[in-house]
């Protein structure tokens, strides 16, 4: 049964759901490395520190905003999605990102999401910024310290359980699947986008495998980045279409663009780049539904 939710409920629900991903990241990118004496004890908690930092920065930006606007910070925070954007951002960058680069990028995406006239999905945009900046400074990698030092080869079980290469919180397909099943019970979750984008990606990948007869192409699909983006980034509540047709077409088109970029150039980034592009046209995806008004209204009779 659905019940009324406030913006605060939505953000808090999401934040609670993200905690297992943060803890898993502490385990996979911290504890396991600490056991091999590769990192310090503080490094074990780096994903958690990044997560908390994002929440503090979100609060500070809202504090500055409420001071400028002369409104109560409590009211501003009660309706703010910045903590959610910040927390998600902490999970889509690699754990070995330079702390100053992380804070710099975080501030930029938080400011961008505060500016209502900028329609781009702030997280997809943040990821693109990360790619560009880390390419410029020559640190572009998703490998953690261990993965950087040894030649790793993960099997399917490793990938499903989360021991794969990827951004800080985006490696465990298992936890992500549980999060997805919790989210689809919520009336605020745009499940149509998540499903349509993942299914489209799946079908395209199967088609590619059949055409090329190259089974390794399955890696494109079982990459946890695709799952993470499909579940949490593309259906981002406030930065995606809201009509039924809009949601479905948004998921499908984002996936098609994402698949093309992933299979041709950047396997881990394609879906984010596609999401950034299609989020610029959210309004037009929603307008698509107006093309079928008569049919819809008949259903309502």
């Amino acid at each position, binding site marked *: 049964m659905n*019940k009324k939710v406030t913006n605060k409920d939505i953000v808090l629900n999401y934040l609670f759901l993200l905690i297992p991903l943060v803890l898993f990241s502490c385990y996979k990118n911290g504890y396991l490395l600490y056991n091999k004496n590769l990192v310090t004890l503080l490094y074990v908690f780096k994903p958690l520190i990044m997560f908390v930092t994002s929440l503090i920065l979100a609060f500070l930006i809202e504090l500055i905003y409420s001071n400028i606007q002369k409104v109560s910070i409590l009211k501003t925070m009660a309706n703010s999605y910045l903590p959610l954007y910040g927390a998600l951002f902490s999970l889509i960058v690699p754990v070995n990102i330079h702390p100053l680069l992380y804070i710099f990028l975080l501030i930029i995406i938080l400011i961008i999401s505060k500016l209502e006239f900028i329609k781009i999905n702030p997280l997809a945009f943040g990821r693109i910024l990360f790619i560009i900046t880390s390419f410029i400074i020559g640190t572009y990698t998703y490998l953690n310290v261990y993965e950087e030092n040894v030649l790793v080869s993960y099997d399917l079980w490793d990938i499903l359980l989360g021991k794969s290469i990827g951004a800080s919180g985006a490696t465990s397909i298992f936890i992500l699947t549980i999060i997805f099943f919790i989210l689809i019970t919520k009336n605020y979750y745009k499940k149509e986008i998540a499903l349509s984008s993942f299914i489209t990606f799946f079908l395209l990948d199967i088609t590619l495998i059949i055409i090329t007869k190259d089974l390794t192409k399955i890696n494109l699909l079982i990459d946890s980045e695709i799952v993470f983006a499909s579940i949490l980034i593309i259906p981002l509540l406030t930065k995606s279409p809201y009509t039924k047709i809009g949601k479905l077409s948004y998921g499908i088109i984002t996936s098609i663009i994402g698949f093309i970029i992933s299979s041709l150039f950047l396997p881990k980034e394609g879906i984010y780049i596609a999401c950034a592009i299609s989020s610029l046209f959210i309004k037009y995806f929603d307008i698509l539904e107006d093309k079928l008004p008569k049919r*819809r209204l008949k259903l309502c009779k």
Partner: protein
Amino acid sequence: MNKYINISKNFLKKRPQDITLKLDSEFIYLPLSTTSKILFNPGKVLKKETIIAMNSTNIPLITPVSGVFLGIKEMPNYENKNIKTLVIKNNYKEETNKKIASKRNLSKYSKEVILLIIQRLNIKTNKDKNLFQEIDREPKKIYINALCDEVNNYNNEFRLLHNKDLILETISALNTIFNLEESDLLIKDTSSEVISVYKEFLGSFPNINLHLIKDVYPISRYEVLSKYLLLNNKDLVINLEDIYKLGYALKRQRFVTEKLLTISGPVVLDPHIYELKIGTKLSEILNINEIKEKYDIWINNYLEQNKLLMDDLIIDDNVNALIITDKNLSLPKPCNNCGICYTSCPIGLNPKKLDQKEINEKCLKCGLCSYMCPCNILIHKKEVEIHE
């Protein structure tokens, strides 16, 4: 079931103790339809239950008290619009021309007489269709809608408890006279007292079923109910209050001149159900100004957000409850495109498109979209522009 919303959890429920009679209004204001013809001149002393006006479809307007007909006055109605009313000054004599009568067995009425009374009472079915036309087309089944959307509105519950015999007898008579196999009495599954009382008595009425319905909003609207029960055109839904009016007219051979009004809400510590003369002015029973200073008063239903603006509201057939809540001081935020309003609409409309005529015409004005909006936008009222 996922589509429907249970709002009762978010509201404090406090039940009135009993019906309070408040039948001594000094003035009565009877809303006059534009096509009505007034049958008397001002100054005339009228007895109770006199036909004072008749509209173009021969629906009579009945005086609920005896007294002097003073003339026409504009008064605010449930939509906060001023409408023409006929004013009667009560002489408290309750004089009537009608003899006190009571018909023993309602099933003995002929079909023609019942149809005539249904027409006179202007009873509707299946959203604004005339019952006297529809019931003559051999309906398969009738459903008595005793559901009440508003969490704090107890009219139907008290009507069911206080007039049980009359209600059951009337439904049973309709079954017999119109050759219906059975009828369903639709009751909210949360009305435990009503359920236990009716379960006990329905043994004597084998052709009436007690049909429990989930307490979700806005299930009592025909559009939602018919989808929920998968009704077809041959099924008729009749409101409980209309069954009561019909039963009263058949049993006593006179018109109902009183109505129930719930005054309740989350901030009301002592909720009441009043039985009032139809046409009573609200200020005769409530000190509106004092309440309005501190609280908001909503006509019929909090979710519809039809706020009481004028103190002289006339309690006519369209006013069933007044819900008093704390003043809502939270301002609407810009729309964040979350789409919750759209996924919540019980009939699948896009509330953000309510400015389109064909969508607006279908809207039930139930207010669920606005209630569910996390940004507090009154979408169904279109008071706030939706900034995307």
